[in-house]
């Protein structure tokens, strides 16, 4: 996909409030969410690399240090395992930390604390000790940041019981998912696709109160379902629009949450359209698309008119040159081709 293939707006909130939505970028939406959370609850604080003085690597927390001070916007050394583990301890101790990990690849340095501590403590303690921690991290490719800053490991993390994985794709979700994650008594990882920060969209004036774990139909259609989330929602919607020009009516389901997965919404869409394309930016082998495909086959086998089709990232570490990177990532053309293929295919049960 080329950068211009990204839509410059995200879909409208499903439930506009009386005050009417305002249009802001996903970056501004997350910043507003953080500021509101800090203002509302004195247990909330942000901790991470360069979140304060620098203003955040992706400028999400820009200006917040001046507003809230060093105790609420806490710069950390480059110690991912140390400060994520400190976030776990602070959460157990009664605070509500929002830990920012600059990019998802750096989260691997904190994997011990995420997997062995945050995800296990409630269980190992027989339900006594929960970890109400929120971790935000930037994910995804498309920005020529090469093979150590571009990956989509959302599906990996979704493999782990004990944590929750959410993936905002609209400005409204960037604005309102954080507060719900902070209300959750268990660890929630928020994966923010880097290409979305500059994308604008309408944001509800108050919480539309759609829980984080419900998938939403972003576009209704009757011929085929595209199941996607996060950074691949915008190209999926563009593909759907283009296919509409050819008389193909595509439904687009935004998962919003990878753990738990909202099986009911997926199956109900498949039951209407009988064909499905799953789009995600992870690698194909063992990815979240494989899980979704498997669930559809398990739960809606007799609804299918064709085998589920996956559009994923080519199985290479992401290369630096733009043409190679774009060839590796899911894009509008690949989604259109896959969708047409699924419609032409008649090999279903």
């Amino acid at each position: 996909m080329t950068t211009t293939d990204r839509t410059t707006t995200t879909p409208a909130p499903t439930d506009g409030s009386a005050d009417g939505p305002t249009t802001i970028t996903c970056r501004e939406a997350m910043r507003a969410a953080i500021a509101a959370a800090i203002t509302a609850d004195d247990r909330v604080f942000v901790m991470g690399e360069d979140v304060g003085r620098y203003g955040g690597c992706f400028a999400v927390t820009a200006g917040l240090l001046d507003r809230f001070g060093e105790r609420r916007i806490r710069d950390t050394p480059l110690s991912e395992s140390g400060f994520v583990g400190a976030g776990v301890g602070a959460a157990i101790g009664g605070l509500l930390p929002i830990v920012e990990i600059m990019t998802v690849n750096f989260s691997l340095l904190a994997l011990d604390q995420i997997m062995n501590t945050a995800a296990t403590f409630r269980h190992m303690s027989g339900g006594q000790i929960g970890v109400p921690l929120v971790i935000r991290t930037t994910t995804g490719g498309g920005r020529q940041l090469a093979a150590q800053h571009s990956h989509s490991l959302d599906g990996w993390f979704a493999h782990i019981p004990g944590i929750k994985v959410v993936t905002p794709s609209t400005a409204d979700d960037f604005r309102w998912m954080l507060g719900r994650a902070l209300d959750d008594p268990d660890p929630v990882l928020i994966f923010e696709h880097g290409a979305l920060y500059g994308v604008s969209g309408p944001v509800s004036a108050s919480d539309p109160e759609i829980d984080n774990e419900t998938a939403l139909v972003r576009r209704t259609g009757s011929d085929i379902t595209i199941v996607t989330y996060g950074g691949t929602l915008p190209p999926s919607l563009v593909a759907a629009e283009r296919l509409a020009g050819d008389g193909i009516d595509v439904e687009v389901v935004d998962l919003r949450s990878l753990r738990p997965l909202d099986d009911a919404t997926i199956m109900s869409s498949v039951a209407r359209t009988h064909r499905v394309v799953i789009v995600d930016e992870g690698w194909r082998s063992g990815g979240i698309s494989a899980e979704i495909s498997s669930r559809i086959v398990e739960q809606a086998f007799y609804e299918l008119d064709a085998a589920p089709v996956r559009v994923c990232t080519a199985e290479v570490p992401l290369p630096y040159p733009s043409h190679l990177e774009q060839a590796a990532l899911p894009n509008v053309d690949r989604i259109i081709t896959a969708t047409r293929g699924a419609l032409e295919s008649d090999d279903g049960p």
Partner: protein
Amino acid sequence: MTDIANELDLLRRMVLIRRFEERCAQLYQQSEIHGFLHLYIGEEAVAVGVMDAIGPDDGVVATYREHGHALMKGVPAGAVMAEMFGRVDGCSGGRGGSMHLFDAHHRFYGGNAIVGGGLPLAVGLALADVERGRSAVTACFFGEGAVAEGEFHEAMNLAALWSLPVLFCCENNLYAMGTALTRSQADTDLTTRAETYGMPATAVDGMDVMAVAAAAHAAVAAMRTDVGPRFLELRTYRFRAHSMYDPELYRNKDEVAEWRERDPIGLLVQHLRSDGRLDEGTLETIEKAVRDEVDEAVEFGMRSPSEPVEDLLRHVYAEETTS
């Protein structure tokens, strides 16, 4: 600064840990306890001495060799034993086992089987105490093997940088499983590590319970008035194998015998006897009381039911939510 407990009381506590674990070893051989079982025998003076300075409002983070620490933090012996058996009345509801003892009420935060994994957690617990205006300290126990982990350095630096009340207790028993300290550290003086982070560090004879208690009381008293972490290196020795599967090929019997001569219980008994403060009758009374407590704990654990299999998926998320 609270007073150090009466020496007879410290003796009773060490004997409790020793006899409790001897019974665990027996029960393990009888296949009543499974999984990994790491015995603390030989190191009792460390947990007893340090925990004497730790109050009920203070937090504790320990390792997978933590039976003694749990008992000293006030977790009932019956609940610890029931956990060994994996029963519902265990202090972790049976889900954790020997390596994962937890008790939220007593602020006992495990039971961590990832070497070094508990240190960042302790930093966070101390941060929460400071931010919420509580005067508690967090005692964090780890072996000398953890000093080689990145998490040790990250956590030590964070605690010092943010002036957090963490008492880092390095239980130096000379072997990280089977790897001797001399084979894993370029500089075997561990207090110098702590000093590079700007925190006061003291090396203590970990076989002398009074010395450990004195150092811990002094450190905790300082931390309650003067912010910032402290580091204690407690020089001790594990008399038994690393776990129940260890043929001990990495150390020789003479070395073990030499250290056994400095058994922390034996040393204290000898000291109290020479002062005329311990006669056979008193020692027998202590042993009898401990025996009764351990018997009762075993009985409690054995009587406790197993969790029904229908509950398998519980305790992954808070009960009101589902996945």
